[in-house]
Structure formats: structure tokens, C-alpha cells
């Protein structure tokens, strides 16, 4: 029996008409909807795989606006038993970790899983920061998790970069940031998602947690990245464009 909590985030896939919403410290954008962040989806898959082996219970939790519920329904369809949404819209990773840690303190867990980096804010801070707030051991960029029956630890493989990996044993409770690709993703039928949409999502507010929105940084502006080299776009039909490119590729070799 393992009690697993997975922290997930709902993020936009493609964004358009991006601008800073002055006075609210957030980015406004147009998008087609919010989806579960990629590595978080692998974290849920990892939780489901562990539950299959050892039995247990999976709760998924997110902090975000109402539209984030879609990501929670996806998680329920993947196999989570319970979903919780903290109703708040905060961009500062430090504040997000404070809110999540406060909610997690009231819950039971052997493992807390998160992803490695969110597609929208790209800070890679929240998971590890939550672990330190809760005073539990942590590991980042985890690609394998195994747990022996009755053991007080998990055995993990994690990436160190450059293809080097590290095998560790970490006592539970622990927090693991799961890397994309850790376990194969299972296909979730739209029927399953539809069914999940009838399930209950628990909603809690910052007030319930005794917190209020506070952020340590101000969003000043948002813009397209400066080009490293002035990229030269090659125009024309595929045939002409390809001819020009082949020339560039062959030149100087």
C-alpha cells in the first residue's frame, strides 16, 4: 500500500496575443485550452504504475484557475483516485510551493511526485522547494522508481545530465520530480475522460489554507526572444528553397 500524491499543473500548449496584464502580475494570452503539463503526466503514469504493483491510493492536486480542472479530469482518467484544486492564480514559484506545501501538510503520503519543469513558467523550482518546506528528502529528474514490499525506501534512477545517471535509495516519505519519458504513457480514450468529468473535484481556497496571495516578483514585460544570429529566412517553393539550402549545407565542407 502506497499513498501517493501527484502535484500537477495545467498549462497552455500554444499561446497567442501574449501581454502582461498590468496590476495583476500575470500574463494574458489566447489559447485553445489548458492541458496537463507533459512531465506531470509522466508523474501521474509513474504513480499509476506503482499503484498497480503495490496497491494504494493516488491523489492529484493542482493550484490554478477553474480551467485547470481539465488537467485534473485527465489525471482521474489516467487512474488517480481523488483530485483537489487550490483555487488561486499565482505565477511566483516560491509562492506556489508555499501554497502547495501548506495543503500537503494536511494530507497523508508516502511519496509526493511532481514533474520537472512547467511549460509556461519554466522555473523548475516548485517540486524541490515543496520537499524542503516539508522536510522530506528529494530527487530531481527521476526516470525509474521501484519499491520493495515492506521497504522503508524507494530505489530510483535519476539523470545528472550528459547521459550520466545515478542510482539512489531514498527513505520514504520522499518527493520525486519525475522526468518526461520515465514510463510509457497509456492511451486514454475520450470515453474515459468523459467519464472522469462526472467525478467530484475538491476545491480549496487560499483562505482555507490560512494564506493570501503574495508574490516576490513583478512581471515587467514579455516579448519574443532576441535572435542570437539574425536568422535569414529562405523563401520560395520547396524546390527552390531546398536548392538554396543544399548550397549552404555543402559550402565550406
Amino acid at each position: 500500500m502506497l499513498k501517493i500524491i501527484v502535484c500537477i499543473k495545467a498549462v497552455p500548449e500554444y499561446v497567442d496575443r501574449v501581454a502582461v496584464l498590468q496590476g495583476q502580475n500575470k500574463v494574458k494570452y489566447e489559447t485553445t485550452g489548458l492541458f496537463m503539463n507533459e512531465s506531470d503526466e509522466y508523474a501521474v503514469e509513474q504513480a499509476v504504475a506503482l499503484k498497480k504493483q503495490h496497491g494504494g491510493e493516488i491523489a492529484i492536486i493542482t493550484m490554478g484557475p477553474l480551467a485547470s480542472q481539465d488537467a485534473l479530469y485527465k489525471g482521474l482518467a489516467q487512474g488517480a483516485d481523488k483530485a483537489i484544486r487550490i483555487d488561486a492564480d499565482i505565477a511566483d514559484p516560491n509562492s506556489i510551493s508555499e501554497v502547495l506545501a501548506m495543503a500537503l501538510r494536511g494530507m497523508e503520503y508516502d511519496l509526493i511526485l511532481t514533474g520537472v519543469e512547467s511549460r509556461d513558467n519554466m522555473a523548475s523550482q516548485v517540486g524541490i522547494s515543496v520537499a524542503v518546506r516539508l522536510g522530506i528528502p528529494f530527487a530531481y529528474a527521476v526516470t525509474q522508481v521501484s519499491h520493495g514490499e515492506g521497504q522503508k525506501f524507494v530505489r530510483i534512477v535519476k539523470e545528472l545530465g550528459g547521459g550520466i545517471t545515478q542510482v539512489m535509495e531514498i527513505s520514504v516519505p520522499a518527493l520525486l520530480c519525475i522526468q518526461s519519458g520515465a514510463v510509457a504513457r497509456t492511451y486514454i480514450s475520450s470515453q474515459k475522460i468523459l467519464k472522469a468529468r462526472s467525478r467530484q473535484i475538491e476545491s480549496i481556497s487560499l483562505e482555507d489554507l490560512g494564506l493570501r496571495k503574495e508574490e516576490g516578483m513583478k512581471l515587467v514585460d514579455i516579448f519574443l526572444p532576441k535572435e542570437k544570429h539574425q536568422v535569414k529566412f529562405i523563401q520560395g517553393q520547396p524546390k527552390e528553397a531546398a536548392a538554396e539550402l543544399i548550397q549552404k549545407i555543402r559550402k565550406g565542407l
Partner: protein
Amino acid sequence: MLGGDILVLPEIRKGELDSTAFGLLTKGRELADQLGVRLVALLVGSRLDGLIQSLSHAGANTILVADHLTLADYNPETYFNLISKVIDDLKPGFLLLGYTYWGMELGPALAQRSGSYMISNCVDLEIEDPFVRAVRPMFAGSYQARIESQMQRPYVVSFQKGALPTPKVISGAAEVMQVPVEIEEASLRSKVVEIVEPTEGEVDITKAEIIVAVGRGIGEEANIPMIKELADALGGSIACSRPVSDLGWLPKAYHVGISGKTVAPRKYIACAISGSGQHVAGMEASEMIIAINKDAKAPIFSVAHYGIVGDIFEIVPELTRQAKLSQKVQEQSE
């Protein structure tokens, strides 16, 4: 409030300095000069004499050394405890590290433990007392945001590899000081079983002069041979971004990026690769980067020299056809 030294944490992986180490020290030197404080580097590991030597003229006033056999293998918990203690004693104003897996693991932990505010994944940092301003990517790198903070020091700041300045050699040598190392192994909750180096695949893509790399935009595994054919026609190697090897469409040995191989071929042709920071860090040193992507706003175009906005399924077969043709012409003329 000003004050507090700048502390740099160079990453050591398998006994070698990560390539961010020198750039971080150069950036740290710039900031230390601006603020009128000292630059301190902390090296943690075992048998560090050679590394101390190579960092002695990299910009630090002082190199703190935590050299102990038990620190030979990186264990996040022991490193976290030890560095936290150094931060408690030194009370730096800023702690700088690389946005590498090491920095992503240790940075937020150290920031949380020392009550610092962390700004991660930076491509630029400016200090204009009392403001700290940083530029960092958002939305998978399609945009960059400028943020401003005026929190109590210290700050923990992690930098993207490609955003660091070119390393400079400084004439004065750094003083070297040992840090006492006490590790209570009994209280540790994390144990390193082993560190595994990558097994070399049949090919070594780092040696290729031409790389044709493919991203998730390829759609399905059945389309990979189309890219392989272009690589073959150009006499180069195929490579891929992380999602493609995660899906098992190409072996991990072909994966370019922070977690895979770092390459710098003469020509790098990125097909349907959006260009996340993770991928770009592994290929931005390539001599010429050519990007083909249907999304004109894909971040890959910001590192590319040449770009085609279009459908790879139209352009790649045409490139292959012409590459084969020009190869024939070359052979005939020889």
C-alpha cells in the same frame, strides 16, 4: 540593502567541471565588481587539486574547498547540507549556479533552506539597487519575460548555459581556503548506490560534421526514415530532441540536449524541432544552424542562421533528392 559576497557554485560531474563553471565565474566577477563585493567559489567533491588549479584565474577572490572522500559521488542530501552550512557562515548576497540538473536540484533546496528568493533559468540579470531584474524564458521558450524583484538578499540565481559570458582569465590568483567537512552518515536519508556513465552506442553523433536532427513534429515513428535518408544523402548523422527518444523512436544515444549529448557540428539541420532550452543547450555551439519548422514563432529560429518556415514533409524529401543529385554530380566530376 547592498553587501554580501557573491558565491558561485561550479558543478562537478564525474570529477570534471561542467562547462557552465567558467561562465558563471566571469558573470560573478562582473557583478562583484559592480557591487564592490568579493567573489567566492565553492568547490565540493573529492581530490579537487586539479580543478582548483584550473579555476584559480577564473575570477574568484577566494575558492572555498570542501574536499572529502565521502563527497566523491554527488549525493543531493550531503551536498545540500554542506552548502547550506557554508551559506549560513558566509551570508552571501547572491548565489549563482547553472540551470543544469544539478542546479535545478540544489538551487531551489538551498534557496528554501536559506530563506532566499530564487530566480531560475535566467538569460540575463541586472542589479540596480534595490531592484534585481532578470530575463527568463516562458511558454516553452517562445517568449521571454522580464521580471523585477526587491526581496531581502540573498538571492539564488540560476543561469542558462548559453546565456553566460565568454570566460575571461584574471591575472590575480584566488586564495584557497578549506571548509571543514562533517558528514553524519547515520542521519542521511538518501544513499547513492552507483553513478552510471552512458554506454556508447554504435555511433557517436558528437563526431559528425553534419547532423540532421528531428523533433516531435515528425508526428510518428514511421516518418523517421525520411530524416535518416536525408542524413545519409548528406553524409551526416541523424539525431533527435528529447521527446523522440522518450517515445522510443530513436535510441537515447541520438538525443541532443541537456540530458543527452552536446554537439557542435559544422552544420546542424533541425527538422520540426521547436527548440526548447533543453535542446538548444546541446547544439547551440554548432557552426551553422538551419531550422525547418512550420511555426514561424518556434524558438529554434532565434538560434538559427537560416530558416525555412514550412512543412518538413514537403521540404525534406526535396532536400534529399537534391542532395543525392549534387552528390552524383560531384562523383562524376571527380
